[in-house]
């Protein structure tokens, strides 16, 4: 982290396109810097650059101060319990972290508390465990890194905890959403030290993002 430059970490994938649109509209990113494999992109202003990272790494970069700001989903942020500021919610990347069960076993959820050790497949082991523990259920968490919907189909798990955007993937795999654990969307996060040491520059950036969003809503 250099004291005068601003580095912004962006989550690759689901949130990337809309994050780039927002930053471009705020005049922070140049519109032609698309595609390519570079992991660090120059910004539209000389003291700003961007770091493209896996979503789960964005809060890590920001917490350690190698990036001053970051754009990431609330789902990823809450999974890791990071010590960062969250000054702004961004109006994209809306989805839910939900508990889903096989269609033909909807009552399986309601009898979870009767099951001493239900198996839960998920990419969010921390949030899933916290949710079930708070309800007095001690699940066996089966951490997966993709295609969580497969869990119940192949008999790996009784239920899954996964992100739901439209619900289509669930339906196609014969699963139904039974509970919402977390309503998620994109969030702007800030390093706690940068927020103090580069206060003027960061609040300027935050205000510009806010202005883009209000203009967008009123037009």
């Amino acid at each position: 982290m250099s004291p005068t430059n601003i580095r912004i970490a962006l989550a690759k994938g689901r949130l990337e396109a809309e994050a780039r649109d927002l930053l471009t509209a705020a005049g922070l990113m140049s519109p032609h810097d698309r595609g390519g494999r570079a992991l660090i992109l120059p910004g539209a202003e000389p003291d700003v650059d961007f770091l493209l990272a896996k979503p789960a790494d964005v809060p890590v970069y920001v917490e350690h101060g190698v990036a001053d700001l970051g754009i990431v989903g609330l789902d990823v942020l809450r999974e890791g319990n990071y010590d960062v500021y969250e000054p702004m919610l961004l109006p994209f990347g809306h989805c839910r972290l939900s508990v889903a069960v096989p269609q033909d076993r909807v009552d399986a959820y309601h009898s979870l508390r009767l099951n001493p050790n239900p198996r839960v497949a998920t990419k969010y082991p921390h949030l899933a465990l916290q949710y079930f523990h708070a309800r007095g259920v001690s699940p066996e968490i089966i951490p997966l890194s993709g295609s969580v919907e497969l869990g119940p189909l192949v008999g790996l798990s009784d239920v899954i905890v996964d992100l739901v955007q439209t619900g289509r993937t669930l339906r196609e795999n014969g699963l139904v959403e039974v509970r919402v654990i977390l309503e998620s969307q994109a969030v702007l996060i800030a390093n706690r030290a940068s927020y103090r040491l580069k206060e003027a520059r960061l609040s300027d950036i935050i205000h510009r993002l806010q202005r883009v969003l209000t203009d967008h809503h009123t037009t």
Partner: protein
Amino acid sequence: MDWRKHMTTYNGHRPPGWPLPHGVIDRFWQEAAHLHAVMDTLRDVFRAWGYTEFIPPTFEYADTLNTGAGPFLQEQMYRFFDRDGKTLALRPDMTIPTARLVGSKLFDQPFPQRFFYSGPVFRYTEPRAGLQREFYQAGVELIGVERAAGDGEILALAVEALRSLGLREFRIVLGQMEFFRGLLDALNLPPKEAEALRSALDRKSAPELQRLVSRWGVKGRAREAVLQLPYLHGAGGVLKQAQNYTLNARMAAALDRLHALEQVLDAYGVTSHMVLDLAEVRGMEYYTGITFEGFVPGLGVALLSGGRYDDLVGKFGPPQPAVGFAITLDRVLRAREEQGIPPTSWTPHLVVGGAIRADTVHRVQRLRAGGRHVAWHYTADDRQSLWTYARAMHIPWAVWCDDPVWVWHEGREFPLPAGDEWSDHVGER
């Protein structure tokens, strides 16, 4: 003899690696010298301000430490059993033992009392942002001064401490817990909702605050006070701005207190390092007045934290107001590296080899008495292997005591001119 071969093989094999538990590290060479240099600097500063040393025990009864620790710190304590079955714990900080000392032993001695400490503390957490499970702290506690002057002394000393470490452009973010507590009084929230508010403020989450005030149906000035709180920070004018959002006497008193403090800080000339933040609500279970954290460019986390904790000493004896701070030395080391502060020297100035004769020993002893760090190298068979050793160990000077005497300094060797004293030739680094 090749020293590398000698160092890395043992009976023809590489020595086995001995595992260390997760969360502890060996500190040696540069790292150890750097840590101690930083500690020595701070101890000198603390002494100059009239603080005296307290060396608390490394472990004591877990119940005692629990008495002073909030639930969060309690969870992080290393506990184990004494032979008589009592539960012991390693000290998770130095403030609790200091409060116990003053509350239980020094309560009838004159006040104010000033203590400083330095040493390792132990917390069962995931190693993160430069902190191991054993990490080093140095800090101070000022006990028996309730006035803003006490807060001011501690903040000015914090600034002086960071300055003495050569750190530049640091900021101390100052909060006042009473302002937030006053707000909580005014809102009259159940504990769970109060915690939701504290957590949203701690994350500076303006959207979350919006959601909370709407859910609670808070209206008018109270609503404004909550929504404006995350913006009540900055270098100047914050106090004046905050006057518009005081809802009761407690909040107003908190601002008066900050106003008085501002004058003390002005007298010390340290206001340029201060940033006021009325939404600073960290460590609420502990602090009763001001709270503060220190940040430096190049380090993403705070390296200093402190505040006023007027309730702590009273848990161990007659109550006494208290205020203090701790600096996390492991983070200081990292910040100094980030800021390009030249590393502390850790090697001897000079290594001496060759025959051990009375006149050589005498010269070595005289250099040592003069403050130079001088080591003997007994096993070098010729001057070349002595030079090799000096180079590998970053020792700037080497002397081969033979006839003639040879002197080596950072790659150059020369025979000692006849009639010269070699001890006159070995200069500074």
